[in-house]
């Protein structure tokens, strides 16, 4: 039988039942490979459920450092009888199936072209442990031990991880080490090594392994956020919970033990955004984090913040929509509902981080932008970035960097007689000055409202006042164009007729796809969009290519719609590559799609074609 032989380049997929303690064992497996200097990118594929339903953990091992989901499975660790058939089916021909053979399974359950490796896990556990919970938990560690034996993973790295994790908890440490060795020794004595092997490398460098939600929350801490209001929703809950953790560690006054932050779990998303807006109005840096359904609920308030010009940051960890959609699957399908959130003419600033490193940077920058522009700023991450641990560049902070609090008129300026008009465009950039409540006894107070007003914040339904204000808001949005992160160009090595535009979590598979395409002779200049409103470079990029692929993870080509609407690019040049089944887009998918389009659009000289 064919056997896949691969060193440092394969996909292992664990099939488990959720609530069985498998998550930490599977992560241990991934981390141990990382400690051997080999990049990994794990992904949790989980149901909207707490206990008893199928869950998967897919680990891509790739020495080059490709982080995108590859597609296909080389080794399935099938621990869930419920999904056996599906898990076996997914294995590539010549791949491996690791399973528990404590109970014999009929031959029909297996595939002829897959190498089955049975190990009596339940039997070993039952013989070793008497407590049912221990039997369950250590079964996971035992299979990690066995895999380490089969795949030549250095057991010392795993034991080191244990000793870091269970520092000061000697009993736990010992029992885990014991289970690990039990599995490893069994595999070494009874099973033959497989063709998938991990070999020590040095491609991890100083990179860090972190999930996007934790990094975003840390960015909020560094960005000076003091008020967070949120309502639990997958996949953003872990962002707020990470913010709580970070604040408990970094935001407690050492002298008094008191909190330099306030976090409220709201009664719903409306209250959460309302609290954030109230705090922003009153001069605190505030945010809420949510996902698509929350964005839908917040629409009215977002319009208020836009029209009354109140800084607020909204972190949207996108999931599959519409409606409840696919709560535990990923998509980039909230672009339009965020870009144009609320009734009336509204437009909002969006940021598109590609990975946890940019989640950190853009979260912190989001607060500067919100204060500078006095408007809601959306951080558009997604489940794939937010809830999966990713190997990425270390987080950086320049201590010389100051928070940009924007145009806030001080008591001294008011006292000195500086003219204050809340909606007066004094600098020509569309951004007026604001004052904070309680600043001056007799100057600078104004009434904030969602109704139309004149430049001095006085209620007015006069057409010219309304138009004047709306035009200023449009000017302000033009200013935003110059402040959001610029797109990044990845030029092809050779002159290219094709361009590609992509953003967010598509970045990892895109980087890989571009390499594969180049190797096949398809050269593509790629531009990663990082902010909206679109800086001028984006329209220029489209104009300089006959065809530009726009790669997105939604059905309706939402970024393309925005590009046509807002960057005024020629829609006939844009070719959509759309992936929206809830799984992260893969390099294979991108390569296939672009190859097909490219073939159809590559003009072969007639002479060549007929000869």
């Amino acid at each position, binding site marked *: 039988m064919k056997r896949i032989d691969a060193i440092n380049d394969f996909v292992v997929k664990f099939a488990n039942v959720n609530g069985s303690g498998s998550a930490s064992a599977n992560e241990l497996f991934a981390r141990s490979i990382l400690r051997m200097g080999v990049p990994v990118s794990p992904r949790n594929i989980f149901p909207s459920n707490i206990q008893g339903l199928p869950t998967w953990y897919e680990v891509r091992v790739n020495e080059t450092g490709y982080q995108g989901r590859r597609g296909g499975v080389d080794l399935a660790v099938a621990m869930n009888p419920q999904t056996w058939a599906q898990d076996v089916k997914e294995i590539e021909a010549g791949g491996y199936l690791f399973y528990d053979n404590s109970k014999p399974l009929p031959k029909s359950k297996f595939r002829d072209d897959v190498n089955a490796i049975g190990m009596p896990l339940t039997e070993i556990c039952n013989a070793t442990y008497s407590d049912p919970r221990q039997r369950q938990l250590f079964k996971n560690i035992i299979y990690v031990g066995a895999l380490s034996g089969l795949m030549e993973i250095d057991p010392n790295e795993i034991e080191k991880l244990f000793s870091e994790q269970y520092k000061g908890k000697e009993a736990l440490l010992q029992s885990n080490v014991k289970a690990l060795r039990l599995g490893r020794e069994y595999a070494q004595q009874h099973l033959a090594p497989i063709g998938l092997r991990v070999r020590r490398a040095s491609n991890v460098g100083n990179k*860090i392994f972190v999930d996007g939600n934790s990094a975003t929350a840390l960015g909020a801490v560094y960005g000076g956020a*003091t*008020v967070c*209001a949120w309502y639990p929703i997958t996949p953003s809950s872990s962002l707020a919970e990470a913010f709580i953790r970070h604040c408990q560690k970094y935001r407690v006054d050492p002298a*008094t033990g008191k909190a330099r932050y306030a976090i409220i779990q709201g009664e719903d998303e409306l209250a959460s955004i309302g609290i954030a*807006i109230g705090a922003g109005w*009153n001069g605190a840096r505030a945010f809420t984090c949510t996902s698509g359904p929350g964005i839908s609920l917040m629409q009215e308030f977002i319009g208020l913040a836009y029209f009354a010009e109140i800084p607020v940051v909204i972190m949207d960890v996108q999931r599959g929509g519409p409606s409840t959609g696919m709560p535990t699957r990923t998509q980039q399908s909230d672009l339009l509902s965020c870009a144009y959130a609320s009734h009336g003419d509204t437009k909002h600033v969006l940021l598109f981080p590609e990975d946890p490193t940019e989640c950190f940077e853009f979260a912190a920058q989001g607060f500067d932008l919100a204060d500078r522009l006095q408007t809601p700023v959306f951080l558009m991450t997604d489940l794939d970035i937010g809830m999966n641990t990713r190997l990425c560049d270390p987080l*950086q902070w320049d201590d010389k960097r100051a928070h940009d609090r924007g145009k806030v008129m001080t008591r001294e300026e008011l006292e000195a007689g500086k003219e204050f008009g809340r909606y007066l465009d004094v600098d020509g950039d569309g951004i007026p000055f604001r004052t904070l409540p*309680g*600043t001056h006894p007799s100057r600078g107070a104004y009434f904030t409202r969602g109704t139309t007003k004149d430049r001095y914040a006085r209620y007015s339904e006069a057409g010219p006042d309304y138009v004047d204000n709306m035009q200023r808001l449009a000017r302000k949005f033009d200013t935003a164009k110059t402040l959001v992160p610029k797109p990044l160009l990845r030029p092809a090595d050779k002159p290219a007729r094709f361009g590609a535009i992509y953003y967010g979590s598509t970045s990892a598979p895109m980087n890989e796809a571009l390499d594969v395409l180049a190797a096949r002779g398809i050269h593509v200049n790629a531009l990663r969009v990082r902010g909206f409103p679109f800086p001028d470079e984006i329209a220029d990029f489209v104009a300089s290519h006959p065809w530009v692929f726009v790669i997105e993870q939604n059905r309706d080509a939402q970024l393309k719609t925005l590009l046509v609407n807002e960057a005024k690019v020629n829609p006939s040049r844009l070719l959509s590559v759309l992936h929206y089944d809830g799984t992260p887009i893969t390099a294979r998918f991108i390569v296939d799609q672009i190859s097909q389009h490219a073939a159809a659009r590559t003009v072969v000289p007639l002479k060549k074609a007929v000869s």
Partner: protein
Amino acid sequence: MTYIAKPKLHHPTLAKNTVGYTRRDYEGTVSTLCAGCGHDSISAAIVQACWELDIEPHRVAKLSGIGCSSKTPTYFLGNSHGFNSVHGRMPSVLTGANLANRDLIYMGVSGDGDSASIGLGQFAHSMRRGINMVYIVENNGVYGLTKGQFSATADRGSKSKRGIANTDEPLDMIGMALLLGATFVARSFSGDKKQLVPLVKAAVRHRGAAFIDIISPCVAFNNHSGSTKSYDYVREHNEAVNRLDFIEEKSEITADYAPGEVIDVAQHDGSVVRLRKLTPEYDPTDRIKVMNYLQERAAAGEVVTGLLYVQPGAADLHDHLNTVETPLNRLSERELCPGSVALERINAALR
């Protein structure tokens, strides 16, 4: 409404309070509400209360939702920042504002449509959290700005202007506030300034969620016979359980009162709410008894007013969250940003 703006010039003999402001300094722009609207009397009571309390006007933030009542913050405290937010959502905006700066006084003004219908959830949760604020509901049982639909506080059987009786059970905001943990609960009547001004003063000085339900007749749509929120009806059925004197500092109970006739409730800041009992057995610090009493009297058709419940020594949301004394909006970057050295340690732990 009046079209004549009052002159800005102050009469030199106008009395100033200890912070140097006359009563006129607490006014806002001219009201655009209907002549005789109860809400204007409430605005006047707020003006009077703030002047008497020697509050600097700019240290107050006034917030509201949408509706006639929510328009009123324009008509008082013209030197305070105001925020006319979205319908039914004043409580969340106020909560956020309060979190950002604990040093200001927060006055939330809402109506029965704003708080009892669309904003019932936010009303409830702001009471639960104990936000330090005065929450006033200007309650007229009707949607005024949309011309006369019943609101959720309209009594069952109360008739609309067209003579149609309301068939829904009314929402009891006082009962809800008590159940949900408000630490200061009062009901008053816009037509009773003597009762209202000291109540507002006491509410401002109370730390925690202070809720005042003020029955405030709508002269345009709900002041006819058959309405239970008309001036006449409320005057006839008003049963005050106590009269309140607000005292800046605790002083000896003078001989004017018979023993047991007066209850003193000390506030956080040293001020005292002195209640002269009108109903001898009424104890406004016993929440369970208060709830029972109010249900009984409501069943008997009375509109009980006064300071109905107060919890001495109440804690507020900042106490619950254990936030620093410095307002969060004044914390420096040094206090907020852990810096590059800490970040390097974080990076190291993620390898």
